[in-house]
């Protein structure tokens, strides 16, 4: 790796980090505006035009609020919980290809921090260790509501990870690769993979809702039963980290869904426009962000439309509906590939 590439990668890393944080901050604003719209209210409109400075005001408020650590809690683990949750949320952005790549001075600078050949497994791995933040935080609070929230979170996340992984296996069978760059690259020409994998996509999006603890799967922080769930005892910016990481997770899972099933940064007739390479990259990145925001809209739309599941319904859906469907999807994909002669 040359020096210029190394510097470029570091800059890209910082940009991805800043964009995830910025997007997450403005998603809190978007969520409140959308909720207001759906409920026929006005929403935040005092801080700045259209309430656009509201996330900044919220952030300042969070930082300067009094910080409390319960006396009988485990101090270090109490602090470690939100930090770990935030770390895992920020770790996934590095394998997502945000655009095709820049060409400057004969070298191509890809719009992806790293293209590891196990990209999908890396994503699943980070998702699966993300639950520790919630578990450690909930346990260290020494509060029964926090503990129950943490236990719910961990069982929910484990259950839905299984179906999510199996939904991805059908996609991997089709593409023959685990690298996100290649999966997006294969959708350069022809149809997006959602056409070939409709069932897989539906399973994946339901699991993504469950993994990000969004309604209707927000049982870990179910306020009507558990006060605030795993973050009952948290205050100040540590609470902010938990809430903020949820929005980053939502942003990243929208980006993953857009790249795996909806062609990533590709859009129809992109090569017929006759655009120059670098201009095309800018347009592609803009299109990719457009797709991401559509998914974020769906996340919020569902939250303000559907009521919360009951716990037994959640477990039944995960193990008795989604898991068999995901396995059936793998078998169907295998048969179709066999008859289409795609198997080597």
């Amino acid at each position: 790796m040359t020096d210029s590439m190394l510097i470029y990668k570091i800059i890209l890393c910082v940009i991805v980090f800043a964009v995830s944080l910025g997007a997450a901050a403005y998603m809190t604003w978007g969520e409140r505006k959308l909720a207001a719209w759906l409920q026929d209210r006005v929403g935040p409109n005092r801080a700045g035009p259209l309430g656009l400075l509201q996330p900044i005001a919220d952030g300042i408020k969070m930082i300067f609020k009094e910080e409390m650590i319960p006396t009988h809690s485990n101090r270090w683990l109490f602090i470690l919980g939100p930090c770990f949750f935030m770390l895992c949320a920020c770790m996934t952005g590095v394998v997502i290809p945000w655009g095709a790549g820049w060409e400057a001075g004969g070298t191509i600078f890809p719009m992806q921090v790293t293209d590891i050949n196990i990209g999908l497994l890396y994503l699943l791995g980070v998702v699966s260790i993300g639950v520790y933040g919630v578990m450690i935080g909930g346990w260290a609070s020494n509060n029964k509501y926090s503990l129950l929230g943490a236990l719910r979170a961990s069982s929910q996340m484990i259950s839905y990870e299984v179906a999510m992984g199996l939904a991805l296996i059908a996609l991997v069978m089709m593409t023959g690769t685990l690298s996100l760059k290649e999966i997006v690259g294969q959708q350069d020409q022809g149809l997006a993979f959602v056409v070939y994998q409709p069932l897989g996509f539906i399973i994946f999006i339901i699991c993504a809702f469950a993994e990000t603890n969004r309604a209707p799967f927000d049982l870990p922080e179910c306020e009507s039963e558990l006060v605030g769930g795993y973050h009952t005892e948290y205050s100040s910016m540590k609470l902010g980290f938990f809430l903020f990481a949820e929005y980053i997770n939502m942003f990243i899972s929208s980006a993953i869904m857009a790249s795996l099933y909806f062609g990533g940064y590709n859009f129809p007739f992109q090569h017929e426009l006759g655009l120059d390479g670098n201009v095309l990259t800018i347009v592609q990145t803009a299109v990719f962000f457009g797709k991401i925001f559509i998914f974020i809209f769906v996340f919020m739309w569902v939250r303000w439309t559907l009521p919360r599941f009951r716990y037994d319904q959640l477990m039944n859906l995960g193990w008795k509906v989604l898991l068999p469907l995901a396995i059936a999807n793998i078998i169907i994909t295998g048969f179709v590939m066999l008859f289409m002669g795609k198997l080597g």
Partner: protein
Amino acid sequence: MLTEYAFWFLSFVAVFSGIAVILSKNPVYSVLNLIMTFFSIAGHYFLMNAQFLAAVHIIVYAGAIMVLFLYVIMMLNLNNLETEKRSNVFKLSAVVAAGLLMTVLSGAIQTADQITLAEKTTGTAGLVENLGIALYRNYLLPFELASVLFLAAMVGAVYLSKKNLNETQA
């Protein structure tokens, strides 16, 4: 050079968190230290360019099995449990067993230089394609037998828990 530093760092973390697993009084700390050990071992796999193995190690052990461990320990709330007194016979047999294990291990280490090691950092044996070909072409029968064994163990575990459930209900 960098890989060598990484190797020593990961080994240090693995050994010390491994010792911390058995020394911590609090079972939750033990589990968290065990997770640290798994992470450093996954780092070792990465150093050997066995990326698939490293990712699966994290997903299966750190991501699934240890979450269940932590889950059970938090549910049972073992914090206030008194450690029971061990009898002298128990201690003596533990010492003998550990000594025998150490004999076996030191015997294995003595002949270790005869084993050809995988090429460090450049080896391709751990990449997904090569591992898949090895498992599904060269070692298909043992692999399938192992999966049948796992299935049998799973069915057995479900059956045992179901049986107890019926007894308590009746």
